[in-house]
């Protein structure tokens, strides 16, 4: 093994999954005995082919869905979630969209406004606060969605392929923004992405799901210097990606035989 594999349970765990299973109606088996532990402050990327259950797993952690079997423990934490689509309310300006979580928490309006403004400035939308979502580009809308997650100062940030629908350039821009946000705040991040490149670039650890039903087929730390400006063109970066791609292919080819047991 050339990659360092994380197995041991951790006392500072933010998320603990124990033999989590999820079946949908019609005996569609999506997740099979997933056990996973995410430490406080860790940036973990969850990747794998489409249909492997990545999003289902994230929804389970967020409490948007319940497991059929197994146990999920999420530590005392302020949780924020970013959907694949931005889900901004079209009748609210970006500012008022970002204020929404605070509004629903009963935060007083002056504090609400200043916190939302600060969050929008952090994602580079300081001069677009009064725009309506319809008048914004796809990248701006996703930035606003990230701002709406940041505004509550989350301890746990769950991201479901937030930049998947964006063009390559915008996507890399937003990835860099996200990395900087995490380096400042050091919240726990669980990111679902189908892009191994993105996973390696952003995270400290990549968990690969694969097969049908989905299982963890690889779980390894990423040991790269994130402050290197040429990170994405370096040999180490590409080596890491190649390794994970091989793991993904292995997982796909063996999954048929193993899933028969369940």
């Amino acid at each position: 093994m050339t990659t360092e594999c994380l197995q041991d349970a951790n006392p500072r765990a933010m998320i603990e999954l124990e033999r989590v299973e999820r079946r949908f109606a019609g005996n569609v088996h999506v997740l099979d005995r997933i056990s996973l532990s995410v430490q406080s402050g860790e940036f973990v990327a969850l990747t794998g082919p489409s249909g492997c259950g990545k999003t289902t797993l994230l929804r389970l952690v967020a409490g948007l869905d319940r497991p059929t079997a197994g146990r999920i423990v999420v530590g005392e934490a302020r949780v924020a979630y970013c959907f694949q689509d931005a889900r901004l309310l079209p009748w609210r300006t970006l500012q008022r969209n970002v204020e929404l979580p605070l509004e629903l928490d009963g935060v007083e309006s002056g504090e609400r406004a200043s916190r939302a403004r600060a969050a929008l400035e952090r994602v580079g939308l300081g001069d677009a606060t009064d725009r309506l979502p319809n008048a914004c580009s796809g990248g701006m809308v996703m930035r606003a969605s990230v701002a709406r997650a940041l505004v509550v100062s989350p301890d746990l940030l769950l991201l479901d392929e937030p930049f998947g629908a964006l063009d390559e350039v915008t996507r890399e821009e937003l990835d860099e923004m996200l990395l900087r946000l995490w380096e400042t705040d050091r919240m726990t991040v669980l990111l679902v992405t189908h892009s191994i490149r993105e996973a390696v670039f952003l995270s400290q650890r990549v968990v690969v799901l694969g097969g049908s039903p989905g299982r963890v087929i690889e779980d390894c730390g990423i040991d790269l210097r994130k402050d290197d400006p040429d990170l994405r063109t370096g040999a180490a970066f590409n080596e890491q990606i190649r390794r994970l791609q091989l793991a993904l292919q292995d997982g796909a080819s063996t999954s048929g035989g193993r899933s028969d047991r369940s």
Partner: protein
Amino acid sequence: MNGFLSRVLPPALVFLAFLLLWSGLIRFLDIKEYLLPSPLQVLEAMRADAGLLLAATLRTMFATVLGFLVASVVGVLLGSLLGVSRWLERGLYPPTLLLQMVPLIAIAPLFVVWFGFGMRSTVGATVVVAIFPVIANTLGGIRSTPAEHRELFRLLGAGRWATWWKLELPSATPAIVTGLRVAAGLSVIGAITAEFVSGYTGDQAPLGSLIMGSIKTFQTDLMFAAILISSGVGFLLFGIVNLVGWLLLRRWHGSDRS
């Protein structure tokens, strides 16, 4: 300016042609005044009975607007109530539909029995006529709130009230505005029809009563004047509702505004 002219000129020309055709028909076919008065005769009737017509118009407008406002507020609340659960919808929708089905002219006398002659009966009947499209459109609008947005609110821990006020109601606004437009037209019809039955005659007469009263005296010119003014009231209310709707919906269409 050019755009304004191109908007105003076509309907103005059609209106002018209509008046000419109207006058011409009367002259060439030699139609009696009590059957069809000429535009000038209608204008003359408006001038001669200006006081009576003005008072009648104000009364009818008041009943129409009041009925419309009550129907709007109660309609949105009832529509929202039906939107709370499928059970409430299944239970309450049939009786609501009855409001739509029962002919106004058949229940207007009932309102007179309950509330007596005058404004209260008229307003009551107007509400009954105008409320259904508001209820139905509010319900439809709330039902079509995107599931993704509902999930967002659930995730943010929003309660029932906050979900209604901050999500469902704004989501349903385009549908509600459509319902209000229909209700505006119906309010005028409702008020005038109710006044056929419930309105006082004489100095206290609203437009509906004037129309009915002028049958008995063969004052067809006065009847025409009252009919024209009734349509004017309808146009005015419809215009105001459209303006309010446009102001409310501007936010929805930030990019595709033409």
